[in-house]
């Protein structure tokens, strides 16, 4: 993919079908021909894209890939604290945004030049032909630390799965976008559409679920990829959800349980239902469409994909042919025989294996990774708290919710600190790390080894 920027790659892949609709917005549609053939002039610059409108964001991505040194799309839904952290820790030269000056103060504070998203389009019309440079895509990851950090990708690494399909489908699939487009899973959906000639119906992460579902029904969406938690919400819209003419359902980001698979199959009897597993460390996906929770044991003997799978000490190991993504934080993950420890715990039952959690104790809440130990340490910083236990509480219908049992110092009355602890949680923990179920208990039991139990 040398010197092949996103714009050229789309043209090559979509070929003569550039009149197909690429993106469906609330008020506007864009054809593939509207996206390609122009480029931005941000040579050698590290550019933040802080754009609310998905169509504008995608236009900017296509304009800048192959001309900017680095592009870093950040969700406009990010908290001020997280944004400040990202901007102060990374050297950016410019920000492109569709927001008001007031919302961009953090950028101006660090002397980062602000450009309006609409100005970018003007530059493009000036016909400036920039010098090609390979662009790094910086993806903020929530990870398991309390603040986000950036992970480096390239168009080739982000688009690898989408580029596996060699031939353009006669019939274009209509995808509904349920993942925030600035997150890893969001790029997978976006690039799958852009590089395979499919239509993507863009949905704002802030829209209420019934609006998203209504739009998918109105736009005749045939394909949706979402987490099991998002699927539960979709099903809760009842009759509206039934109106979406789904042909393909993809579940990822969390383990899909039998209840959600059964419910989807009775709701959408015509649809193909696929659940997937991806290891962040190995960047590999397992997928199966037999509507049974877990994965078949035969995958351990002969997986038809890019890797071998093995289970040792209840942990899942992968051996990939591709050498991509072998390092995380500079640490070598492969052993001498090339096996990568995914850090995921596996339970074997009969002829299936199930991913049951992380060895590190990290909990998956609706697709977000939460490290209960970090949350516990933060809560312990409250002056009236003496002991805390943080854990995930699971329910087949609602998925996992983050819970905290808090023991207060003996001289403290629950009623007098409840409000202050609520404020403390809000100020010190990002959204995904905030325990929603907070209980005050008299005593927190330790296990025999002296460690805190993982349950309530």
């Amino acid at each position, binding site marked *: 993919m040398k010197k092949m920027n996103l714009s050229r790659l789309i043209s090559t892949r979509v070929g003569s079908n550039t009149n197909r609709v690429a993106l469906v917005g609330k008020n506007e549609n864009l054809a593939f021909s509207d996206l390609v053939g122009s480029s931005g002039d941000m040579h050698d610059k590290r550019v933040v894209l802080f754009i609310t409108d998905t169509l504008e964001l995608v236009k900017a991505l296509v304009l800048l890939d192959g001309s900017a040194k680095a592009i870093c799309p950040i969700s406009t839904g990010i908290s001020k604290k997280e944004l400040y952290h990202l901007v102060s820790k990374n050297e950016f030269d410019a920000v492109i945004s569709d927001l008001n000056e007031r919302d961009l103060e953090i950028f101006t504070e660090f002397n980062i030049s602000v450009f309006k998203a609409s100005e970018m389009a003007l530059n493009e019309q000036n016909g400036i032909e920039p010098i090609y440079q390979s662009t790094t895509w910086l993806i903020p990851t929530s990870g398991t630390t309390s603040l986000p950090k950036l992970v480096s990708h390239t168009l080739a690494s982000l688009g690898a799965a989408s580029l596996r399909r060699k031939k353009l489908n006669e019939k274009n699939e209509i995808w509904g976008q349920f993942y925030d487009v600035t997150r890893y899973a969001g790029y997978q959906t976006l690039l799958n559409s852009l590089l395979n000639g499919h239509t993507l119906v863009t949905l704002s992460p802030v829209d209420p679920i019934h609006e998203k579902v209504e739009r998918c029904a109105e736009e005749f969406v045939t394909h949706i990829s979402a987490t099991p938690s998002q699927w539960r919400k979709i099903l809760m819209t009842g009759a509206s959800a039934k109106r979406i003419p789904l042909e393909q359902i993809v579940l990822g980001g969390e383990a899909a349980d039998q*209840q959600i698979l059964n419910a989807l199959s009775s709701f959408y009897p015509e649809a193909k239902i696929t659940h997937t597993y991806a290891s962040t460390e190995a960047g590999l996906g397992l997928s199966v469409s037999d509507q049974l929770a877990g994965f078949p044991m035969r995958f351990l003997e002969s997986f038809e994909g890019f890797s071998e799978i093995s289970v040792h000490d209840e942990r899942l190991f992968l051996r990939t042919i591709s050498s991509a993504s072998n390092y995380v934080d500079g640490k070598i993950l492969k052993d001498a025989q090339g096996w990568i420890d995914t850090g995921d715990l596996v339970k074997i039952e009969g002829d299936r294996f199930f991913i049951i959690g992380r060895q590190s104790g990290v909990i998956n809440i609706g697709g977000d990774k939460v490290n209960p130990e970090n949350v516990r340490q933060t809560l312990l910083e409250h002056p009236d708290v003496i002991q805390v236990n943080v854990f995930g509480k699971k329910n087949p219908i*609602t998925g996992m919710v983050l819970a905290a049992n808090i023991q207060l110092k003996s001289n403290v009355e629950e009623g007098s600190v409840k409000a202050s602890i609520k404020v403390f949680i809000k100020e010190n923990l990002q959204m995904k790390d905030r325990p929603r179920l907070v209980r005050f208990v008299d005593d927190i039991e330790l296990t025999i080894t002296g460690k805190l139990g993982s349950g309530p």
Partner: protein
Amino acid sequence: MSIKETIRATFSSVFSEQVEGCQLPIINDDLVLLESGLDSMGFAVLVVELEEVLGFDPFSISEEAFYPSTYGEFVSFYEKNEPK
């Protein structure tokens, strides 16, 4: 208190705990759960709190997977699955 009354009281207390700057909606059978102001995590908390008060969780007991849309459907699912 009947199941219906318990759910109503718990819904109100969970709502005031979980939702900020939003008034408690009028609770009737047609209230759409996800439009009530309670988000899906708040809804999860409601199910956990109800298990504590009522002593059972119909979503774990029931063999069918059921995703209620309205408050009325939610309440009748509890009534239907109350352990005898």
